[in-house]
C-alpha cells in the first residue's frame, strides 16, 4: 500500500463550514463541544465508524469539510438520539448528522457504492417525484447502484415477494402531485430540496413552471 501524507494544511479547511452548520437548525451549539467523547461512548454504532462522533464534530468545527462529508460516520448514524440526549453541552449531534447527510448528497461527496446514502438519495427522489415509494423499483435501483451481484442473489426472494403480492412492478403515484411539490416548495431551503430531490424532480418542477 502506498504511504499517504496525512498532514493537513490550512488550505484543506473550509473556513466557513462551521458557520454554515451553525446556521442550519440544530447546529447552533456546534462550537460549544468540549470534546468529552460521551457521544462516541454512548453511540451503539461508533464501533463501525471511521470517525467517532466526537472526532467528526471536531473535524466539522475546524472546517475539514471533505473528511466530514465523505465519512461513513454520518451514514451509520441510526438516529437513536442517545448522543443528543446525553451530550453535556446539549449539542444536537443527530441533527448535525442530518445536516451533514443532506450536504453530502448535494455535493455528491458521500462514499460511492455505500448503500445507505444511495438509498437515502433514491428514496427521496422517488417520494418527491411520485409521492409514494415503489419498493421494487427502489430495491432494483439501489442494488444496481451499489452491488449488482447481490441483486442476483436476492432475485429469488424478490420473486417470492411479488408472487405473494408483497411487492409490485406497477408504479404507484399520488393524485395531485403538484400540490405535494407546492408544500415541499414552501419549505425553507427550497433550492436545497430541489437538488436533494434530484434532477427528475427538478425537471418536473421546471415543467410545472413552464405551464
Amino acid at each position, binding site marked *: 500500500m502506498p504511504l499517504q501524507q496525512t*498532514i*493537513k494544511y*490550512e488550505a484543506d479547511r473550509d473556513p466557513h463550514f462551521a*458557520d454554515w452548520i451553525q446556521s442550519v437548525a440544530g447546529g447552533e451549539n456546534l462550537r*460549544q463541544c468540549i470534546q468529552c467523547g460521551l457521544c462516541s461512548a454512548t453511540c451503539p454504532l461508533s464501533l463501525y465508524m471511521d470517525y467517532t462522533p466526537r*472526532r467528526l464534530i*471536531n473535524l466539522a468545527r475546524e472546517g*475539514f469539510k471533505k473528511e466530514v462529508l465523505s465519512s461513513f460516520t454520518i451514514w451509520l448514524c441510526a438516529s437513536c438520539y442517545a448522543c443528543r440526549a446525553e451530550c453535556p*453541552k446539549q449539542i444536537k449531534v443527530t441533527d448535525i448528522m442530518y445536516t451533514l447527510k443532506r450536504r453530502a448528497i448535494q455535493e455528491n461527496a458521500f462514499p460511492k457504492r455505500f448503500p445507505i446514502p444511495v438509498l437515502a438519495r433514491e428514496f427521496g427522489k422517488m417520494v418527491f417525484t411520485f409521492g409514494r415509494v415503489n419498493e421494487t423499483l427502489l430495491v432494483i435501483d439501489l442494488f444496481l447502484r451499489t452491488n449488482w451481484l447481490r441483486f442476483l442473489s436476492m432475485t429469488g426472494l424478490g420473486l417470492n415477494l411479488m408472487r405473494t403480492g408483497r411487492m409490485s412492478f406497477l408504479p404507484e403515484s399520488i393524485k395531485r402531485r403538484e400540490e405535494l411539490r407546492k408544500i415541499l416548495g414552501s419549505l425553507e431551503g427550497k433550492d436545497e430540496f430541489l437538488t436533494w430531490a434530484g434532477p427528475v424532480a427538478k425537471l418536473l418542477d421546471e415543467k410545472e413552471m413552464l405551464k
Partner: protein
Amino acid sequence: MRIGFYICHCGTNIAGTIDAAAVRDFAAELPGVAVSRDYKYMCSDPGQEMIVQDIRDNKLDRLVVAACSPSLHEETFRKAAAKGGMNSFFFQMVNIREHNAWVHEDKAAATQKAKDQVRAAITRVRFHKALEKKSVPVNANVLVVGGGIAGIHAALTLANAGKTVTLVERDSTIGGHMALFDKTFPTLDCAACILTPKMSAVKNHPNITLWTYSEVSKVEGYVGNYKVTVKRKTRYIKEDLCVGCLDCIEACVFKEPKFRDDFNQGLSKRKPVYMSFPQATPKLVTIDPETCIQLKTGKCRKSCAEACDRKAIDFELKDEMKELEVGAIILATGFSAFDPKRHAYYGYGRYPNVYSALEVERLVNASGPTNGEVVLRDGKHPKAIGIIHCVGSRDEHTNKWCSRVCCMYSLKLAHLLKEHTGAEIYDFYIDMRTPGKTYEEFYDRLLQEGVHFIRGRVAEVNDWAMTPEEEGKLVIRVEDTLAGFVRRIPVDMVVLSQGLEARKDAGDVRRLFNIGCGTEGFFQERHPKLAPVSTFADGIFIAGACQGPKDIPDTVAQAGAAAAEALALVDAGHVELEPNTSHVVEEECCGCKSCVPLCPYSAISFDEAKKKASINEVLCKGCGVCAAACPSGSIRQNLFEDEELFGEIEGVLS
C-alpha cells in the same frame, strides 16, 4: 511512680494489625504501671475523660498513650493530663499507627514491635521533668514584604484592623503584575479600575507606612519580636517635595526615550528619569542610575533638576538603612514569568512577531505602548493569531508544574485579541484547565466566539513556507490530537503563554527570613491543607504567588488569610513557646563554639566575657543539633535529656 498506660484501637487503623489487648496486658506487667487500658478511640471525649478520671482516682503521676502521630494528638493528651491535674510534660506518646500498624502486615511481629515501642516509652517517661510553656510578649506591628495585589490586600486588611503596617516594595511603585494587565478573567473587569483604588488606599491609609524602591536586607529576632533592616534605595528625588508633575522627564537631556521600558516589557522606551505608569503609587519619579548621564559620568547639564521648580532632584542623595520592629511578617513577593527564550523552538527573540503573554497584556492595554492597538513589531495588523499554552509548564525540561493561570489568561487574551483585531484565533492547549467560579462558563463563551481550540502541544514555530498560503507567515506545527492528524497553521502573530515560576532570588529571600522552599523554589507552607499561609518560622506568613502559582481571586483570599493569621498572633499580645528547648550548663561549657555555627535558627550566641555559649530559648526550635554536637555534653535539651533517651533505648532493646 504510678504510670497510666492507654492503647488506642483507632477503629481498625491500629487494632486491625496490632493485638491491642495483648499490648495492654503486656504493659500492665511492666514496673510502675498502675493502670493499663485499651479503648476504641482515645482521642474521643470519653477516651480523654477516662484518662482524666484515672489520674484523679489512681493518683497517676505519669501518662503514656500509644496511638497515632504526636503531630495529630500529642496536644490532646497533654491537655487531658493537665485537666487531671498532672504536668502536661509527664506524658509520652507512642506512635503505633504511622510507625507500625500502617506499615506492617505481619500481625504477630507488629504486636511485638508495639510492645517494644511501649516498653521504651514507659521506661523513658519515668525520667520526665515538669516543664512549663514560656510566654513571650508580641509586638503589635506587622511588616508586609511585596506590594503586589497580595501585599496590598494584606496590608489594608491589617491596617483596617488598627494595626500599624509597613509595606516594603522593591519596585518604584506598588501594583505588581496586576498593574500590567488590561482586563482580568473571567469577568473582564478592567485591572486598573479595581487595583488603583486599593493602591491609593494603601498610600493614604494612616496606619500604613509605604516604602517603595526598598528591600529588606536583614531579619533578626523571633516570633512576636522581629527586628528588620530595610534598605531604602534612593531615587535621587526628595520624596516629600516631588509631586509627580513629570516636568523633569520632559526636560531630560535625552530628547527621545532611549532605554528599555521595563513596565511595558520592553515594547517601548523610557528616559533615565521615569515614572512607570500614570497611576504609579507613590506618584514619584525615579532616576535610573544605570542610564542617567549625571549619575554615570557626573557631566550632564542636569536640565531635569533645573526644570523642577520644587527643587526635588538631588543627585547627592544616598541609600538609607532603616530599622523596624514588628511582631509578624507577611511575605508576598510574587512570581516571575517564565522566560520563553528557554523554549528555543518557539522562536521567541528570533521571530519578531512571537510575543510573550506579558507583552501582549501591555499590547492590548489601553494605557500600553500602542494605546491598545494590536500592531505587530513589523507594523502589520495580525489576521491570524496562535496562542500557545503551557510554555514553561508541565515540562520536565523546564518546570514540571501546571502554572494554573495560563489557560484562563490565554482565554482572556484570545477574547481581547479577537475583539481588538477580528483575527482568526488558534488556541493550542494540552488540557483546558478552568477550575474556578464561572471559569468554565468563560471557556464556553470563548468556544462560542469561534476561537479554534486545538488540543496538542506545539512542536515548533518557524517561517519555512511549504504552501503558497504559508509565505511570509509564522507556521505552527502541531498534532491536533482531537482531529487525529498533524496540522501546519500559518499565523501572523504567536503568543506564548508563559508559566509562573519562583523569583530568581527566592532562595535568598528564603534564607533571609529563615523559611523553607519546595524543590520548585516556591515558599513552603507549614501544611499544604491545614496551614497554607503559615511557614515553619513562627510569625512569618506567606501570601500569593510566592507560595505557588495562583490567580488574583485566590491570591487575595490567601492575603486575607495571612492577614488574619498575623492578626491572631499580634492581637493576642503574647505567644506560648514549646519548652523542648536546649540550654547550656555553664559550668560544663568549654567555650569551643562548635555549636554556634550549627544552629539553623541563630539561637546560640557566644558570651565573650564569660567564654561560654548561651542559647536564646525563644529562638530555639528544639532541633537538638547543638545538644548532639557539644563535645563536653554541656548542652541539654528538655524532653531529650540523656537519661530520657537512654531509658528509651534501654526500653526498646530489653
